[in-house]
């Protein structure tokens, strides 16, 4: 088990290094001189050269990559070109919104998926199953940002139950903040939850046809006990995989949905940074998002082995 985890950690680190290199290279070939962007097109050559030196952009790329990474590890990311404030401050504030939003959404979608998926599987081919699967098929097809808009129209404009957008800040109290995040997480969770519900259902049904389920029934276990003790754990293996994959969809979904609700998370930050040509912020936010995706997939890999003992033995 420890060898397994060690291997996974090595892969994780290698992937993170690779991701940072790709981002750095992409930003490197980016046309447009940041110094020029900051100073405006009318700036004198002299001023541009001076700022370039000040920002350290005249150093060779390898050196700059190295100082970026070492700075990253120390939490020293430099200043935003546009706002002249430390990037870390910008990112920290945004992350404290995006991360809870993402966690809330994935938790909501997992709950949704298990309830719907298990109910549908238990009522295979009956009216409830068919209806729920029809709805989930619809749920998959709805763009999350449209759903977000519809939710705003319904709950904020028509019913006036929840705020239409914005984020009060954590100082204002947790409840108000959770309320502000409720609609966005609902918009995100519906799509992911629908996908996961379908996977859960088909996976449970598939496992129910396995020989070992027949063995369990032959032992005298009831349908319900069989479901909990023998079906669920096996059925969750594919659900777990898809959850990992869906997390990245959910994270990029937050980028879009945050913009619908005008929530100052990472998504809003990165879009603003693009519009301001604040490349250094873009670079760091994208690396952060990629890191989150990679980390979640790492966690899924580990969980995978916890759920399925066969993997520990056969892992490469």
């Amino acid at each position, binding site marked *: 088990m420890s060898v397994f985890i060690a291997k996974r950690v090595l892969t994780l680190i290698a992937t993170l290094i*690779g*991701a940072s290199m790709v981002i750095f290279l992409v*930003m490197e070939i980016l046309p447009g001189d940041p110094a020029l962007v900051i100073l405006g097109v009318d700036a004198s050559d002299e001023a541009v050269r001076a700022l370039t030196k000040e920002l350290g952009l005249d150093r060779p790329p390898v050196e700059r990559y190295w100082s970026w990474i070492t700075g990253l590890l120390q939490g020293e990311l430099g200043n935003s070109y546009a706002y002249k404030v430390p990037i870390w401050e910008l990112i920290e504030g945004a992350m404290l919104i995006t991360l809870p939003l993402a966690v809330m959404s994935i938790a909501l979608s997992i709950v949704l998926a298990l309830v719907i998926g298990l109910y549908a599987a238990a009522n295979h081919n009956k009216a409830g199953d068919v209806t729920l699967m029809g709805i989930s098929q619809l749920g*998959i097809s709805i*763009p999350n940002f*449209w759903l977000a808009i519809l939710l705003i*129209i319904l709950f904020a404009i028509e019913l006036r139950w929840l705020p239409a957008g914005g984020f009060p800040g954590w100082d204002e109290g947790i409840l108000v903040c959770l309320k502000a995040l409720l609609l966005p997480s609902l918009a995100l969770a519906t799509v992911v939850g629908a996908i996961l519900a379908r996977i859960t259902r088909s996976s449970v049904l598939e496992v129910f046809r396995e020989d070992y389920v027949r063995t369990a029934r032959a032992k005298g276990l009831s349908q319900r006990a069989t479901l909990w003790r023998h079906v669920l754990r096996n059925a969750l293996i594919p659900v777990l995989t898809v959850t990992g994959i869906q997390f990245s969809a959910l*994270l990029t979904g937050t980028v879009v949905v945050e913009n619908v609700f005008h929530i100052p998370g990472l998504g809003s930050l990165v*879009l603003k940074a693009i519009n301001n040509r604040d490349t250094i912020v873009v670079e760091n936010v994208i690396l952060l998002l990629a890191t989150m995706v990679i980390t979640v997939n790492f966690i899924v890999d580990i969980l995978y082995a916890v759920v399925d003992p066969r993997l520990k033995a056969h892992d490469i």
Partner: protein
Amino acid sequence: MSDTRSLSFLSRCRRSRSFMVGGIMTAFLLVCAAISLFWTPGSAYDITIANRFLPPSADHWLGTDRFGRDIASMLMTGTQNSIVVAVVAVSIGLSMGVSLGLLAAARRGWTEEIIMRLSDFSFAFPAILSAIMLTAIFGPGGVNSILAIGLYNIPVFARLTRGSANAIWAREFVMAARASGKGRLRITFEHILPNILSIIIVQATILFAIAILAEAALSYLGLGTQPPEPSWGRMLNEAQTLMFLDPMQAVYPGLAIATAVFGLNLLGDGLRDILDPRLSRKR
């Protein structure tokens, strides 16, 4: 022989409800796009401020937006945009991804390892993230969003192709072909590709739907299709500012996206049932 086969194929198509409904919805989409090429009920481009916010009428089926453009016409013309983006993006992913996947399965060893590690790695950059990076470099625009979605599709196809191709490579008839001295390239095209084609087609249908979603999201963010070209995502963006004034404007484009994606998803499900009965057969 081939007659009875095609007959049973058709009858299977007819028996699959998903395929029929999805097919009809997709066909409707294509027809809308085709008609909009030479006719729309109003104008999707003309800005006539005097006509802004007209309610639905015989002239303007779904009313007009804040610039006086005809919403129904914009939706129809937007179909073209969605289809073009999706077709090109999926084609990029399909051609590159399938080739890489086939290569990985045929060569194994280091080639496979490199291709698969690279595709693993690209999973860290989902469609919208890579699109954001690309737009940060080249600026927002339709072509860039197509490129970004296409790039995202490559590893998806590569993984699927390699996985299914490896399974076929292990089959007896491929062993027989290899024993008879056929080259890897020839076996790939004679045996491997035809056998995994159905899986690829199903995947392409589903990615087609995802591409439409992704394009809409990018356009919504202002990173995709640029005005005045009508696009569903962009329409949603514009409608959002008018939510309090005219909420229905935010409903139509979303409905169009959902219909397109729903139809394609159904079509994909139906195709899977028809092309690969093993996957859907119930005991």
